[in-house]
């Protein structure tokens, strides 16, 4: 029977051969992002930039497709064993860049490393363990029935356990995760992904070569070489595309959308996004922010519509909460509350009529127009007598500052990793707890155990309607308390030359699947 099957598969492979030939990777793609990956260790930081790298040089067990369903990647199939256990079958014959073969021991290694990572451990908190059945079968187990198990599996990019084990010459463990430091993993990489990193000069240029033994032979991708150049200046990045210096750019600044649309040699792809851009008000650094009235005053002083209309050129949806429309936690009744008079009154009631001085920090190459948004917000706060000392930094320097919580107001954008509202709360508003990883990106140090408990309860609620109700209540309570200052959901835009077929590989997560990219 097995022989028959092999023969059958073999003949299929032969039949598919002409197709595979036509998809032979020969093309070179020059692309420009606003920034390059800050490290090569995909578990060091949970961010859009790192996930983009993960999808280039690694493969997840499963991944989101355009319709927000799941595509099988390294996991060939999966089935529920009971309401707390999911069994995955691994694809056979998958090779890492180092030549090692992928087995369940690599998945186990990766799972354990994720549990160690300060950025990822909160996402994997519902999981209690991994059961290895054989070389190609394993089970993921959660403590409670967990509705988002598969969503979370999109974050498991198996690492080459052999490559990342042992010690370096100076005696460090190769598996160590070092935040903003230098470790073996932050400078070396071995995954199963379509592209091997061949050279990297941080902040200058990064080169990728297509992996010769890439398992996914059905992929239509025909890009052999990728050169990634970070270009921070919006205008320069767009000019590089229009002049033909690069083939693909992201993000496209809202001011230049028309210019690119008008150009007949380029393609523009836009999507309405789900990434929330917001400010945290740090209560540990500023006494006044402990007062809910002051936080509300700030919330009333910020003109979200103005920012979305003018700075983002309508390329964003103004937000009064974290969950975008369509998410279970999205609460229809929460409205934008821009009202300077009310804000001034609140400051007066709180006893801060004469205002105070704070520091504000924002990246200048992470989110679309991030530094300009921060500048506009600083001007808006001047109306309620809050003087802002604004500092904008490139993201490679911003994240260490963010982790140290070194600004009184800090800008952050967040895309729910699990495509679910609970993820926003867990990372952005939960009481910070280094052990569980909760509130890992809560730079406001806002802490409301009741809301945390509510979200935790929602997380194990399998009745979707009840769950949505709880999450919406959480949004409501944070809104009333002005726990943070939401600004907008940022839309997404990419642009490329006409011969680069972008549309099929893009998605609302802003993770271009470059391995499947076709260049004509």
């Amino acid at each position, binding site marked *: 029977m097995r022989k028959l099957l092999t023969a059958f598969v073999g003949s299929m492979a032969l039949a598919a051969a002409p197709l595979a030939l036509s998809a032979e990777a020969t093309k070179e793609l020059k692309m420009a992002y606003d920034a390059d990956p800050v490290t090569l260790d995909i578990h060091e930081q949970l961010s859009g930039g790192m996930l983009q790298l993960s999808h280039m040089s690694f493969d997840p067990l499963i991944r989101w497709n355009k319709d927000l369903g799941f595509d099988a990647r390294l996991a060939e199939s999966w089935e529920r064993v009971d309401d707390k256990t999911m069994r995955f079958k691994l694809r056979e014959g998958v090779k890492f860049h180092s030549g090692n073969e992928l087995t369940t021991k690599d998945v186990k290694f990766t799972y354990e490393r994720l549990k160690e990572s300060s950025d990822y451990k909160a996402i994997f908190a519902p999981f209690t363990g991994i059961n290895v059945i054989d070389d190609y079968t394993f089970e993921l187990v959660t403590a409670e029935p967990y509705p988002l198990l598969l969503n979370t599996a999109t974050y498991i990019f198996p690492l080459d356990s052999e490559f990342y084990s042992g010690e370096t010459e100076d005696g460090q463990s190769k598996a160590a995760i070092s935040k903003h430091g230098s470790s073996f993993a932050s400078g070396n990489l071995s995954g199963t992904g379509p592209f091997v990193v061949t050279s990297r000069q941080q902040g200058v240029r990064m080169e990728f070569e297509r992996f010769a033994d890439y398992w996914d032979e059905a992929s239509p991708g025909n890009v052999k070489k990728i050169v990634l150049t970070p270009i921070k*200046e919006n205008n320069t990045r767009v000019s590089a595309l229009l002049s033909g210096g690069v083939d693909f750019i992201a993000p496209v600044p809202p*001011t230049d959308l*028309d*210019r690119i649309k008008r150009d007949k040699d380029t393609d523009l792809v836009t999507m309405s996004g789900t990434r929330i851009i917001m400010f945290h008000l740090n209560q540990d650094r500023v006494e006044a922010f402990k007062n809910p009235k002051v936080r509300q005053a700030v919330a009333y002083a910020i003109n979200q519509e*103005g920012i979305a209309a*003018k700075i983002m050129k309508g390329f964003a949806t103004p937000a009064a909460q974290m969950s975008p429309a369509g998410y279970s936690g999205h609460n229809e009744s929460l409205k934008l509350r821009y009202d300077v008079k009310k804000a001034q009154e609140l400051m007066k009631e709180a006893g801060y009529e004469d205002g105070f001085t704070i*520091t504000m920090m924002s990246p200048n190459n992470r989110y679309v127009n991030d530094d300009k948004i921060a500048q506009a917000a600083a*001007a808006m706060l001047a109306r309620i007598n809050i*003087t802002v000392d604004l500092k904008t930094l490139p993201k490679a320097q911003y994240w260490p500052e963010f982790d140290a919580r070194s600004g009184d107001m800090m800008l952050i954008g967040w895309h729910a990793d699990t495509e679910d509202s609970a993820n926003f709360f867990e990372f952005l508003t939960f009481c910070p707890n280094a052990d569980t990883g909760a509130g890992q990106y809560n730079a406001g140090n806002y802490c409301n155990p009741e809301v945390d408990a509510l979200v935790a309860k929602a997380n194990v609620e399998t009745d979707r309607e009840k769950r949505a109700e709880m999450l919406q209540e959480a949004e409501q309570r944070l809104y009333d308390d002005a726990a943070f200052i939401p600004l907008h959901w940022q839309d997404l835009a990419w642009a490329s030359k006409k011969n680069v077929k972008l549309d099929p590989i893009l998605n609302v997560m802003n993770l271009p699947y470059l391995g499947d990219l076709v260049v004509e």
Partner: protein
Amino acid sequence: MMTATVSRWARVRDSFLWYSFKRDKVAIISFIVLLAMVLSAIFAPLLAPTDPYDLALIDIMNSELPPVGMSGADGAFPLGTDAQGRDMLSTILYGTRVSLMIGFGAVILQAVLGILFGLLAGYMGGRVDAILMRIADVQLSFSTLMVAIIVGAVFKASFGSLMFGEIAIYMLIFIIGLAEWPQIARTVRASVLAEKKKEYVDAAKVMGFRTNRIMFRHILPNTLSPIFVIGTVQIANAIISEAALSFLGLGMPETQPSLGSLIKSGFDYIQSGSWWITLLPGLVLVVLVLVINLLGDWLRDVMNPRLYKG
């Protein structure tokens, strides 16, 4: 008192300087333009429709309005607004003031240092001369912009950006002044070397005057004309240096923009329709530097003894 001023004015009117100024149309026009710019910069708080430093007056809804005469313009903003909603006219007036202050301030600092070291080196000679001129040589081998970038970055890192905003203007004067003093010092030294061999210096020495008096009261006045010429050119250079530093993000902060930081802030928009944010301050900068340089040229021609006495 009265007679003194009258006679001084009469002296100016009889001078060769005034004579050649009256005959040089370029010099007259340049002077009028420069005077107009300096006056409007000095009186910017009176002339400007709004105070661009007061963030509370800015409304984001007014951002990127075009100058009057184009469709969509608002009469309240004659030259349009920038990306944050600031009135361009007010911002340019205040920006010119900042640029001019830095230009003049830096040159005054340069002149003080340059004249002092130049006189000492030229008059004392020997070891003093050797040491001072080697320091000048070393400093000239660094580019001004590089020195300014390093010092500026250190300042910015150590003071924080709010504090930096308050002292930025003095710091830029300090940086640019410090970086360029050898230019003036060398010119002064060259003139002093020529002057100190002359009879009037010997006469002063014989009369028993002290070195200081000879240096500052006798030799210095005779070396002033090249200092004026080089000083004028240096003002233009200092303004350009400041604009370059601001464009690189190391100069004036966005909240108190100079012409350079204004140009930078509009750079993202230049190809997407809102050209005025960069172009208008750019034009003002070009005109300002141009008239100063034209005046400098004229001054050089007039003050060069070989040209008018020969």
